[in-house]
């Protein structure tokens, strides 16, 4: 049965399922909430500002909504998808709910001690792919993804599966949630980066790497940021820069470390961690291999006049 038919049959303007209250979600603790809302008239005090520890995805299907996401105002139109990260707020001024239709889902993805987010055991994504997706989600510059109606369609599919409960629906629901995360990630990284302009993509990547140098980047994460598969990514980076992605990253790390070593107030251990080495030993070895100096020697040579 299609979702429209479902709505029709139930004479309802909305589907709203909540874990703990709706039997349909009994098997899905990682989906605290999912639904589709059709709002016919402006309603006051219904769209309260909330902050949760889950990832929330809202997709506009009809109408026009003025929302505040993480305290910033956005106007959302049909096809726009909003991505609200764990810890970010969502609401509207005076808690007004505008006229229109939207679909949404809350996904309980795990926040780890180091602040990273990653899908749980229900997910079919490999650990490294899950981590890469989590990293890309956290790096999002704008919470609104324009012209991205696929997200709404996927949420509809999830609702249909939940109501239909046909054979294999549990796998299918989880599968669709993965699908949704993949769609969102790919869409985010594809914005503005077509094959037309690899230099621009590369520059963007460079900026993100420099801003997050302490992060232990994997090639999967860098490739996902550039909106490419790892094989193509490796090839493009190598032919464009002359370096493999990891070597390029190491060069940025050492360059930044050199800059910091020339400032006396930061300790060598802090520099190692700030520039993404997992220990001062690892830093020292890599640094010496390339520059011929241990970091402490290098520092001494450059601060002799101070």
């Amino acid at each position, binding site marked *: 049965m299609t979702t429209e038919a479902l709505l029709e049959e139930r004479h309802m303007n909305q589907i709203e399922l909540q874990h703990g209250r709706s039997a349909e979600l009994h098997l899905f603790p990682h989906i605290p909430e999912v639904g589709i809302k059709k709002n016919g008239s402006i309603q006051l005090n219904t769209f309260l500002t909330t902050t949760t520890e889950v990832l929330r995805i809202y997709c506009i299907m009809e109408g026009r909504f003025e929302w505040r996401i993480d305290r910033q105002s956005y106007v959302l139109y049909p096809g726009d998808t909003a991505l609200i990260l764990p810890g970010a707020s969502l609401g509207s001024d005076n808690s007004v709910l505008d006229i229109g239709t939207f679909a949404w889902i809350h996904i309980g993805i795990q926040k780890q001690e180091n602040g990273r987010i990653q899908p749980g055991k229900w997910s079919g994504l490999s650990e490294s792919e899950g981590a890469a997706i989590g990293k890309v989600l956290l790096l999002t510059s704008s919470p609104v993804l324009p012209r991205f109606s696929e997200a709404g369609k996927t949420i509809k599919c999830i609702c249909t599966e939940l109501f239909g409960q046909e054979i294999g629906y549990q796998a299918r629901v989880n599968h669709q949630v993965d699908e949704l995360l993949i769609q969102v990630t790919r869409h985010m990284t594809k914005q503005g980066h*077509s*094959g*037309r*302009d*690899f230099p*621009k993509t*590369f*520059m*963007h990547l*460079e900026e993100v790497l420099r801003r997050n140098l302490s992060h232990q980047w994997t090639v999967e994460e860098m490739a996902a940021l550039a909106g490419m598969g790892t094989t*193509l990514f490796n090839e*493009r980076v190598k*032919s*464009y*820069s*002359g*370096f493999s992605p990891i*070597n390029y990253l190491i*060069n*940025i790390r*050492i*360059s*930044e470390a*050199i*800059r910091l070593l*020339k400032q006396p107030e930061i300790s060598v251990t802090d520099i190692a961690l700030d520039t993404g080495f997992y220990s001062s030993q690892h830093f020292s070895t890599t640094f*010496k*291999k*390339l*520059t*011929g*100096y241990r970091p402490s*020697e290098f520092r001494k040579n*450059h*601060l*002799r*006049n*101070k």
Partner: protein
Amino acid sequence: MQCVITIELGTNGVRVFAFDLDGRVIGSMKGYHPTFHTEPDYSEQDPEQIFITTLYLLKNLLNEYIHPKKYKVASICFCASMHSVLAVDKNGNPLGHAITWADNRARREAQELRGSALGKSLYTATGTPIHPMSPLLKITWIRLHDKERFALAAKFLSIKSYIIHQFTGEYMVDYSIASATGLLNIHDITWEKDALKYAGITPDRLPDLAPVFTSAGRLKKAFQQSLSLPADTKILIGSSDGCLATLGDGVLGEGKATITIEDSGAVRVMGPTVLKDEQMRFFNYLLTENCYVSGGPTNNGGNIFDWFTRQFGDFSHPYDIESSMQLLIEEASKVPAGSDGLLFLPYLLGERAPIWNADARGAYFGLNIKHERQHFVRATIEGILYEMYSIGKILGEQRDIKSLSVNGTFGVLPFWTQMMADMFNRPVRTRQKSHSVSFGAFLLSATEMGIYKSLDDAARTVELPDVYRPDKQHHAVYSDYFSIFEKLSTRLSEEFEAISTLQRKHAITQPSLIPIKN
């Protein structure tokens, strides 16, 4: 067996080459480093990243091609882009990033000086056009607008001086790079007093002047060890990319000129005298005491075709930009010379030689109902090359150019090389594997080693195997259209100013990622 290594510190990255003593390439590597544009007029590079990139490439080149075959490195010769400025403190530590040639922040200062009598006399003394690219104006800008950096700056270096300082601990600048700072008197080879006064500095805030054959100190111990190089490995200070590309093409002596087309471009000649020009259109840089490399630079070279390809190229298949360009060139070749009267002014980035107009803008002219898509492609390439020809034409007023050579990524595309032969009506020589700058550095090293008696001798041995001969009919067509191209370039100056003023007025300020060159 001995070998020579060259290190080229270019605009977009570093290239290292190893040559055997016959000038054959043993191995090469390149590494990219980014240019940052934090403000629309700014163009900066991270000096530490350039150093690390250089070190990484040198190490890998040695380990891959040199040490396994037991070559002995006779010398390591440096070449670099001109006009960069890097301020360092008393410990030699960088104060901010290096400012590259493409940086335009000193636009206002340049405009003022260019219009003054002092500007004229400085141009005559230093050979460097009065332009925001000139370190003279960049240092002046720092003094006026970044007082803290100016006060802390113990020295103002070029990128090459900084990199050499990392390797050997010496502060040196070669004649060629120095002659492109706008601070050096190119006639008596001393820092020009009036220029220093204008910039507000004393000579001790500049590196030591050194001829291009100078050994720039001894490789530091740590590098001798990490690179497995003996202590007596000669570090040659070398020259600039412009001078060495000219030498590398063998353009020493009467009647020869060379055209370089990378992202930007230049037409150059080399000889014992400078080019004089009331309108200050040419540069005169020093290779050695009595050898000047002179010519005119353009902002609008391959980067314009790159722009065109990004906008109108075929990207429906996962082509990279090179294949998209190749497809466009195939389209262009289906259109007759002259593009059936469609003309293109390539001044998308303003222009240096010969019109020296930062406000100049691009235009397609002469469009009629029969013109098709492929006419635009051909007209775009023709426009870029008419611009090269217009520089060559004014050079021809002072030097008799009998033969030409072409180098640079875009210059050596056969379709482009042929078109230049046709426009100039001269045979054009080239080599497919274009590495003229590094080969020039090799010739310099080999001369220093005594393999050649002089640079003259070295230049004479250069053989460029591919010759493109001009087609008389095409030349006639191009000449006809060129006269209109030339008129438009100067006649539109009022409109150029009006439109660029409006463009600035209505611009939404946004830091740009693409280089903005005057």
